């Protein structure tokens, strides 16, 4: 029974840790973040399994984690508040201000620990060559950065879109 509680605790604790550690662009896992993923995984495994190495224990803990995950996903779909707590909301990183200038959201960039190079990475992924080609950039809930091409690049096939 204790092992099941350990599995539940481990799951919800890791959900909190991963949420607090913060979003990073998903395809840009740096070596540091790889260390984080593997190290936390290894440490959690040690504490969750303890000295119970039986197949029964492993099966029960896996089922417990699956149940916890299913419940979390169900509750998240039912409650917008929980969805926000678990995933946050999309965040604008670059936008067009009232005077028509494109500006960085410096507070968001700093707090989410995202640099202009991360935005440019996403821009290149969309075939954009410079930051001038980006009208606005949004950090999505899953950590991806969406970029909208500027009117300058619209003439090369992009659209004229602004985001607020």
């Amino acid at each position, binding site marked *: 029974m*204790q092992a099941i509680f350990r599995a539940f605790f481990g799951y919800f604790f890791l959900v*909190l840790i991963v949420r*607090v550690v*913060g979003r990073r662009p998903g395809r840009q896992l740096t070596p540091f973040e790889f260390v984080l993923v593997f190290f936390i995984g290894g440490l959690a495994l040690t504490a969750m399994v*303890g*000295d119970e190495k039986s197949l029964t224990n492993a099966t029960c803990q896996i089922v417990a984690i699956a149940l916890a995950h299913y419940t979390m996903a169900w509750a998240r779909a039912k409650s917008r508040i929980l969805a*926000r*707590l678990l995933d*946050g*909301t*999309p*965040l*604008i990183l670059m936008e067009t201000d009232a005077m028509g200038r494109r500006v960085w959201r410096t507070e*968001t960039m700093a*707090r989410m620990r995202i640099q202009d190079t991360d935005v440019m990475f996403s821009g290149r992924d969309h075939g954009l060559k410079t930051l001038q080609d980006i009208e*606005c950039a*949004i950090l999505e809930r899953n950590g991806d950065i969406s970029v*909208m091409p500027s009117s300058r690049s619209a003439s090369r096939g992009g659209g004229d*879109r*602004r*985001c*607020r």
Partner: protein
Amino acid sequence: MPVTARRLVENSVAKVNEEVAVGEDLAFQRAWWRFERIVWAFFVIIIVLDLGGAFGRGPMAQAQVTSANHSLSVHYERIERAGTPSILSVKMDAGAIRDGQATLFVSDSLVSGLGARRIIPEPASTRIGDGGLSYTFPITEPPFSVRFELEPPGAGRFPVEIAAGPGAAAVTAVVWVVP
């Protein structure tokens, strides 16, 4: 054929000035950032406490109790971790020795709660009774010490009584085991 449930697509994601629908909620995000700062501060406190030994294995966890006549002193960790080995050592001096033998009494909680696995040195004899175990050691020269290797199986509070013999005044070492 079953009917597939459908719902009209509505602009349920916030959209401003007919521009790209983002659904950003900066007020919520700022509240979350405040919460994150509190969580990080809490994490720092946890690490500092852990380094200090508040969760065992550190200076704050080390403890010692001595009997009134100073014939027996116990070094132990007042905070232990479940499933983690540790040492509880009992030092006895000449006052605890009679006829070339020393008898050490420990309460049951040392075995049941703190998981005593081994005694160094091996006692010459062991007697069960009075709510604990009495070990007899042949002694040639005081002082001497007895070490108990512990590995607590689970969390809880475990007071351990230790005395130089079943009838002697006992010292109590209270050990908290964290999960």
